[in-house]
């Protein structure tokens, strides 16, 4: 199974959701929780809106991430 994310935060270059980077960006997160936890789903940080958003979110500032 796969989930498509074209146009969503998950596929956007402004979206950062890698666990290790998130734990560095949010001090204290790893003390009593984790960026690898199921409750986080695939939420991450949007550098355009400076918000912590769900991966399925959308906005007008979407810029496709470079292909891996």
């Amino acid at each position, binding site marked *: *199974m*796969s*989930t*498509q*994310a*074209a146009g*969503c*935060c*998950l*596929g956007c270059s402004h979206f950062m*959701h890698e*666990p*290790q980077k998130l734990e560095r*960006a*949010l*001090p*204290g*997160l*790893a*003390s*009593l*929780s*984790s960026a*690898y*936890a*199921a*409750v*986080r*789903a*695939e*939420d*991450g*940080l*949007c550098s355009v*809106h*400076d*918000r*912590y*958003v*769900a*991966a*399925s*979110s*959308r*906005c*007008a*500032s979407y810029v*496709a*991430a*470079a*292909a*891996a």
Partner: protein
Amino acid sequence: MAEIAQQANGTLVARRSAWSELFRNEDWWAIWIGLALIAAALAGFAAGGSIKWIAVAPQKWSHLADVRTQLAQHWLQYGALFLLWSAAFGAGAAALGIAVSRFLPAFLAIFTVSTLIYFLGLWDQSAHYNLEPPLVALALGLLLANTVGVPRWLSPALRVELFIKTGIVLLGASLPLTLIAWAGPTAIVQAAIVSLVTFGTIYFAATWMGLDRRLAATLGTGGAVCGVSGAIAVGGAVGARKEHVSVAISLVVLWAIAMIFVLPLTARTLGLSTGVAGAWIGTSEFADAAGLAAAQAYGGYAGNVPGIAGTPDAAVTAFTLMKVIGRDMWIGVWAFVLSLIATARWEKTGVQNRTGAAEIWRRFPKFVLGFLVASALVTLVSQGYDYAAYKKEVVPALVAPLQALRTWAFTFAFLSIGLTTRLREFAAFGARPFYAFAIGVVVNVALGFVLSTQVFNGFWDRLGQ
């Protein structure tokens, strides 16, 4: 986890394999590690043996010479146990993207210090000096992290959640499924009352003080449901500002750590039974790891501190039922409902939230499934035994070794909490978020105390017998 792929038409898409989640998520790794250990224990038991050789644990001691004797007699077992944990957690760490070559030396240090703390807790004077292993581990970690600092090479092994969730899965093996079915509904009712009141208190206090609704909801869930995990789940679901998520994390961690010391010491002063105290801690602590530290510390008073009734395990059992079954399981529902409200009723942010009901499952703390499966497995195996035979045969050969492994996993976690809590790195928070959260804490602690000691006390007392 997702990977970006390019389709034939040039559209960039992110693909996420559901199967990959089973190996790239701490919840699932806690399940695999916990259930693998339980399966090994069951296989050994079925063959007429036990894993107790490798599930070595310190015994009570009075003089340092006793410690030296224990280590001399059992050093091979401690070495084998280190290798077992290294293989299990090393595999998990590798799957999470942490290099095994960096994890192992760091874990050796964690294992060594945890062994010393475990031994300290078995000193026959430890209760007299309040040297409960969870509190010592936490205090030592906090002291190091906030004075001399923690070397960077130690960071790869400081996986609080992986350790604590593995311990909770192992804990399932010592709780009969019938007990969970009997106590679960009461835990859910008590937890629901406190969660709703606490969330409402923090949310309305925060908005009354003029704070952003998304910050209010993030703070409220952090205080009412499951601490930092609750805060990040709801922060993401409602699209909170980054600084607001950081503020919520800082407040939750600070209060949770304070409560690790305050709740057990207050309960001890009041002479609460282990079951009642565990229920109170389960209602009023914010995070699983913090609450288990408090509950395990309190369980250690049973039989060591005059006036503390109940069994040592009752505090951890009551806490787990209240926190895991009563509160943690519902975080997906909280996130989903609040995301709907945020989308429909709150001010627009420029980000369009498209969260659906599937979020309830996606955010479900999967380790709870491992906890329940562990309970079901051991309950099934124990069915052919009457109570006397269970205590004589099943407990020493099957349950006790798993309890020892659980204590090890918890000790790794408690030490890691302290070592990862670097106060100077925390986000600064203003007076208003602090007051809003503090009001919620006061209401939560008071209501949790009344429900645990006055309303449902008979129930929680029986749990400890």
